[in-house]
């Protein structure tokens, strides 16, 4: 089903994940440290430019190439996978898709090479799933936007190499009385823009997440990303696409649980035999494999629709919902198969267990996915 080139990319990323990420990521995770050197090497490998055309400095790959890469990375570790996913889907893609010539020329080269990272600030302390509840405001004062508000849980927003955060803000009122929401580029280091200390997270411990405060932050009027008032529509498109990527990442975690469990079931002995000889363990692992496999088929389908220009909204929601739940189920079963060792942070499946839960929450909760599917079914 995949082309020879897609397979070769998968192999290349698999080797990278096993050789470069796997041996060291546990330590970064334990220390809640961002793995700059791994990110640098992902950059030299061209991963941050994957879905962008060559004339934009990218690798000329398609969205499926990005998804395969995320699956292989997450099979070993989700922190590096989400760093790449957010950097592309939420960071560089909006600039590429909605940016002016000047905005692209200024920001994209370093983003597609992975030398810098961009973040997307939508969620606020009082507005997550209901993103229309945004209260951050931007007011035009002469030729500058003045921004005030708070964003929370923003991935890649506070690394040493973060160059910008695109924020959504209320810029006025629509004729129908609803909020006019726009996207504005805020360069890192702009006075009044404060990155708060990193959170203490349950999982994704080697990825970068911060609360952001905007206190009379002034940026040029030209930093508006896309037409004024289109911010809401823009991020809906970005999130639809991003769901396929999160489904791929979830599939990787689900598959990583299978990989680890198969190896452990062969090697661990109890009652005089390998635990893999017990049917209770075999069936558990079979069910895990079924979940990983169907998750993969679901994201392949959504990606194929996206690439063919067909409507992919429902397929993307199905893939994201199914794969994230598969990841959580597989992580629970994999830790069970590992017994007490599965509860020790040094065991990869313990990391998978901690990393799985957010997949049912981020980029649209499971409830929101069900709402999208129901709405698409006309109810």
């Amino acid at each position: 089903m995949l082309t020879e080139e897609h397979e070769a990319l998968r192999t290349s990323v698999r080797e990278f994940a096993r050789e470069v990420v796997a041996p060291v990521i546990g330590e970064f995770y334990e220390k809640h440290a961002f793995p700059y050197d791994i990110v640098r090497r992902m950059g030299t490998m061209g991963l941050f430019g994957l879905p962008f055309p060559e004339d934009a400095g990218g690798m000329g790959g398609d969205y499926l190439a990005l998804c395969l890469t995320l699956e292989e990375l997450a099979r070993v570790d989700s922190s590096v996978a989400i760093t790449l996913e957010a950097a592309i889907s939420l960071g560089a893609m909006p600039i590429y898709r909605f940016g002016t010539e000047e905005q692209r020329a200024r920001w994209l080269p370093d983003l597609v090479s992975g030398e810098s990272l961009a973040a997307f600030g939508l969620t606020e302390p009082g507005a997550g799933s209901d993103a229309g509840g945004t209260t951050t405001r931007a007011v035009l004062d002469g030729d500058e936007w003045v921004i005030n508000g708070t964003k929370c849980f923003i991935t890649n927003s506070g690394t040493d190499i973060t160059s910008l955060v695109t924020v959504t803000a209320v810029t006025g009122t629509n004729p129908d009385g609803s909020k006019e929401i726009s996207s504005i580029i805020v360069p890192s280091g702009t006075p009044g823009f404060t990155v708060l200390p990193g959170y203490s997270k349950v999982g994704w411990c080697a990825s970068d997440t911060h609360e952001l405060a905007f206190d009379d932050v002034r940026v040029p009027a030209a930093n508006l990303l896309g037409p004024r008032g289109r911010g809401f529509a823009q991020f809906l498109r970005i999130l639809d696409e991003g769901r396929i990527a999160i489904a791929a990442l979830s599939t990787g975690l689900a598959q990583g649980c299978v990989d680890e469990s198969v190896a452990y079931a062969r090697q661990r002995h109890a009652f005089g035999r390998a635990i893999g000889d017990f049917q209770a363990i075999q069936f558990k692992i079979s069910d895990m494999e079924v979940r990983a496999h169907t998750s993969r088929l679901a994201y392949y389908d959504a990606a194929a629709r996206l690439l063919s220009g067909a409507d992919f909204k429902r397929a993307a929601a199905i893939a994201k919902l199914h794969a994230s739940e598969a990841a959580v189920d597989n992580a629970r079963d994999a830790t069970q198969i590992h017994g007490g060792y599965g509860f020790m942070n040094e065991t990869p499946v313990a990391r998978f267990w901690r990393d799985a839960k957010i997949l049912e929450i981020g980029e649209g909760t499971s409830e929101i996915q069900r709402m999208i599917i129901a709405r698409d079914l006309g109810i």
Partner: protein
Amino acid sequence: MNIVVLVKQVPDSGAERSLRADDNTVDRGAASNVINEMDEYAIEEALKITEAHGGEVTVLTMGPAGASDSIRKALSMGPAKAVHIVDDALRGSCAVSTSKVIAAALGGLNADIILCGSESTDGRVQVLPHMLAERLGVAALTGARKLTVDGSTLTIERQTDEGYEVVTASTPAVVSVWDTINEPRYPSFKGIMAAKKKPVDTKSLADLGVDASEVGFAGATSTVLDHAQRPPRSAGQKVVDEGDGGVKLVEYLATEKFV
């Protein structure tokens, strides 16, 4: 700089490897075949040199038809083209005849630098770089952990057990490298796509003007007569520490004449 990198396809050293029962050669069907690890460092070094000084990198492989997978992977890292020496008569070639064939192919490639790994993970004879330099009448800079190019002067830090030696030669020369020299790149998607279109020139022994009787089983200067599996590790001896563990360990070392 015109650089030729020697790339050998070998059975994956991380997987189960074996020799064939019939002719004692490596069982290439059983193992998954990969680029000899050290050769990836040679490719990286060649790319770095041409990125800094200009020029072109060519991959040269002697191996069966299936080695084309490894050639494609090597090309996806960045080299411009490849030469693949493939001929049924090559099976069973010894190191001496391998060097004869590769030297013949190098004759037509006009290389300023011939880069290769210091050893392959299957043969591990570490002689090919020396043999090639001898046959071509050029300098051999072997075991490099660092290579600098200044005009036509090549300087290496030659890694030894005690430290390193600085060795200099002028081009053309053969340079073999260790895995301490750099950090090989992983193929990018652009590189993978580009590799599809890169030319691979296939050469037979006749094309190179080498007589089939001088290579393969026919021309081997040494022959593997027999082989056996390494015996499984024996159970060993357990020392239970009942306060006298240290004494027991030393007693064991003494019976084995280690102390």
